[in-house]
């Protein structure tokens, strides 16, 4: 409904460290507390809060404590402009670390440039967003799509693909990459259809899908409602083809109940990752938030790691000077729940990707993992 463009005035100052009297390093988190991202935003904020608490408990960064400033970007451009303005010019934050919509990120970039503030973007997106101030530690299509398509090609003997998306930058961007990748690997795309972002009636597209003779589906819709309506309507129409979904997370899958079973997803984080770092992270989250815990996910965990990446960069740079920190960000690596991550590929990061299958209870079973998938040429240097 009425999306608002608003920004947060509440500053969450984590004051756990006892002897930290120095001037704090301020981390700005513009995030969609309202609007399309409002479902996932609380989990992102929790991730940031845990990272800040842990770092402050161990003495902060170079002896300075961390302070968190969260601002609502309304999940859109207008709100993001205000949120970035407030964080950079009013709160004077040292860095922005956040998961946002592409519209919000784009709206923020000119402000980030004006304020000369480093910006670590922690949301997966359609790729190719480039600015000297921007680093990305989440996946792009080059990393996410191949696991699903390769699996369908090999294990499901899929030859003919049908692509369905929401008509927006992410939906179109993901599917145009998917189409190219399918064709490169010898498959054929027999249909590619889009519905407006707020569309909820997939009837005609499903009828076309059934008539197309496709043997696999890949979808990339706006998160939340369109994902749910599409899946429900696919299942109601009796579609049981191999179904790869580029936009569903574990939480949304749960809300679809049995309809979500057998959906294939590809992610850099699933709660089921069997590593010591992940288990430690989940335990710490559970301890800190208890019953209020929002399940950590592929959009919130990179936020946690982003804070640590900034810590490493400041320590390497010997201070918070933006230019030095920006240079250091491509050289430091972080060991986190998703493994070891270094944003050294044109300001993007190679990631370990997991192919998962949604189970009848809404959980995700990891079928295969693909270590160190390269993000490809996201921001090639201009010649």
């Amino acid at each position, binding site marked *: *409904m*009425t*999306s*608002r*463009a*608003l*920004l*947060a*005035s*509440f500053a969450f100052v984590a004051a756990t460290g006892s002897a930290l009297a120095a001037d704090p390093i301020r981390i700005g988190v513009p995030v969609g*507390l*309202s609007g399309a991202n*409002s479902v996932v935003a609380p989990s992102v904020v929790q991730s940031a809060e845990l990272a800040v608490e842990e770092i402050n408990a161990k003495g902060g960064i170079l002896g300075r404590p961390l302070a968190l400033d*969260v*601002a*609502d970007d309304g999940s*859109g*451009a*207008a709100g993001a*402009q*205000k*949120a970035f*303005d*407030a964080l950079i*010019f*009013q709160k004077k934050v040292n860095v922005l670390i956040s998961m946002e*919509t*592409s*519209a919000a*990120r*784009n*709206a923020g*970039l*000119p402000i980030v440039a004006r304020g000369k503030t480093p910006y670590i973007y922690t949301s997966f997106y359609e790729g190719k967003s480039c600015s000297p101030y921007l680093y990305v530690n989440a996946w792009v299509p080059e990393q996410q799509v191949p696991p699903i398509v390769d699996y369908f090609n090999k294990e499901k003997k899929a030859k003919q693909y049908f692509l369905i998306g929401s*008509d*927006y*930058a*992410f939906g*179109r961007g993901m599917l145009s990459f998917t189409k190219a990748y399918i064709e490169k690997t010898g498959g054929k795309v027999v249909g590619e259809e*889009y519905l*407006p*972002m707020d569309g909820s009636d997939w009837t005609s597209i499903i009828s076309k899908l059934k008539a197309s003779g496709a043997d696999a589906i890949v979808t990339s819709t706006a998160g939340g409602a369109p994902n749910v309506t599409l899946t429900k309507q696919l299942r109601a129409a009796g579609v049981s083809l191999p179904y790869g979904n580029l936009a569903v997370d574990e939480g949304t899958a749960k809300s679809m109940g049995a309809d979500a079973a057998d959906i294939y997803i590809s992610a850099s984080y699933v709660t089921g990752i069997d590593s010591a770092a992940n288990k430690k992270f989940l335990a710490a989250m559970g301890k800190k938030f208890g019953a209020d815990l929002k399940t950590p996910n592929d959009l919130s965990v990179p936020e946690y790691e982003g804070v640590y990446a900034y810590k490493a960069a400041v320590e390497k740079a010997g201070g918070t000077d933006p230019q030095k920190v920006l240079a250091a960000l491509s050289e430091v690596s972080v060991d986190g729940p998703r493994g070891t991550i270094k944003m050294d590929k044109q300001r993007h990061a190679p990631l370990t990707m997991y192919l998962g299958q949604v189970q009848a209870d809404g959980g995700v079973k990891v079928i295969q993992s693909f270590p160190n998938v390269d993000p490809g040429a996201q921001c090639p240097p201009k010649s």
Partner: protein
Amino acid sequence: MPEARQLGQAAAPIGIPTRLWMAALALLIVGGILAAPLLLDTYIVNILIRAFFVAIAAVTVDIVWGYCGTLTFGQSAFFGIGVYALAIIFTEYGFGPWQALLAIATAIVAAAVVAALTGWLSFYPGSSPLYASIVSLVVPIVLVQLVYSGGTFTGSSSGLVGFESFDLELENWFRLAGLSLAAVAVVTLIIMRSDTGRLLKALRDNDERCTYLGVDTSRYRIVVLVLTAIVASLAGFGYAAFGGVAAPENASFTFGTRLIIMVALGGRGTVIGAIVGALSIEVSSAYLSGSLPYVWELIIGIALIAVILAFPDGLVGVIKQLTHGIQPFERGPITRLRPIETAAVKSTDSEIALELKEVGKHFGSLSVLDGVEFVAKRSELLSLVGPNGAGKTTLIRCLSDGRERSTGFVAIAGHAIDRQPPNRIVEFGLGRKFQAASIFEALTVAECLRVARTHRARPSLVSTSIDLELPPAAISVVERSGLLERLDEEARRLSHGLKQALELAMVLSLEPEVLLLDEPTAGLTRAERQAFADILTSLASRDRLCILLVEHDLDFVREISSRIIVLHQGRIALDGSVDAVANSALVREIYTGQQAGDDGKES
């Protein structure tokens, strides 16, 4: 109470102190805008720059809705057109003086074209305000959908960013945006207080009456929409030039509704209210909503409902009420009445004023009127009588609106009316007075009369004239009814009888050749009725009008008519002199209520 005065009495000019006061206020505002960025911190300056551009869009909503009465959700679409004109052109062709000019031209032309199309869809003779509202809702939705499917050209959901734009200092952006808003506000206030502004208020008050005063209301509404669209588009242009971002939400209907909420909360139809609403919502949301994103929305919703229920005039209305006793009541200029010579040379008695051939009106198989034929000349005072449901009102409608009748031919003063809308037929020389007094309640008596002169005297865009030029027939009604003493009073305060007289004077201001009156004496006192009879007979004899009167009161008819037509079951039953008809068996039957029953629907 304004003092009574004679014709031609000089009016008091606007007091000099008022002018000084206004000039001082203007200086204060301009000075404030120039100085403010030096005093405020960067953050609030940023917020205010955007808020100024948004407030300009809110002012356009106020014009279309507050002043002209069309609830529009669509101004955001025009704002968005300006945003995208700039973003697309700077992205495609880079930044430079020519590109900037091209972008401004595109913003203006695209907004004007879309607005003209929207206007054509929304406003046509007989269109409902509800329908116009819904159309205004569709426009931004379609536009945003186009943006979404525009790929890299429009930037789809991510919007466009990273284009080079005007390189101004933050302080200068503030001054530019602030002065633009002030300029838009001042120009709007001047126009809305001019004669043109009164006309727009008249459209809001009573669109039908305007149409029957010969005003092409659809055209006015479309022109207003196009002009406000251009202003909104330029506001969007400035917004994007400052922000360096174009996003679909700049054009969304959500933004459109937010503009409405701003105007509603601030106070509609005041310009100042729109600005107060826009600035206060933008600024307070920047400070408050982040901590309570959901509750903020809830507060806005509740505030909207509360304002509409309890304070329809918004914040500004509340303040006005509170300060009403303190501030001296600002009185407009005092109207000076002036007679004009009727330009048209009146022709001889034999000239036919009204001609009907085979006029019929059918709903499916039901005939309300069938084969009605008669001719009326100048100076004839023709009464149309008949029982309820005989089709009298329907016949009046068929004479005054070309689209009403199903079959047949009607000519007014020698012009065939074809399928023309009422405002065109008025130009042929028709004046219609409705059964229930149809005037502009929110205007003063003088303003009502001035609106009625729109077809002769093009209303000024900047000033309010003191002189009110009326034809002798209208003046005589104004004088004889006692309206003269109350020219500068709001029409809503008039008695029922005076309202009827005012409407008659308005219709006579059209200098009609044919006058249609639908039960003009209903609800009048005996004295008022007698005065009315005198006025009508002198209009017929002295001003040589052809008058067609629908009337129930047979005594009244008998007293003033030169001829009577009896309509019965949609057909002409009798047509003849007063004596012949009034004494006929049929009329006696009808008026003693026997046998002739209600057998048709008068709808």
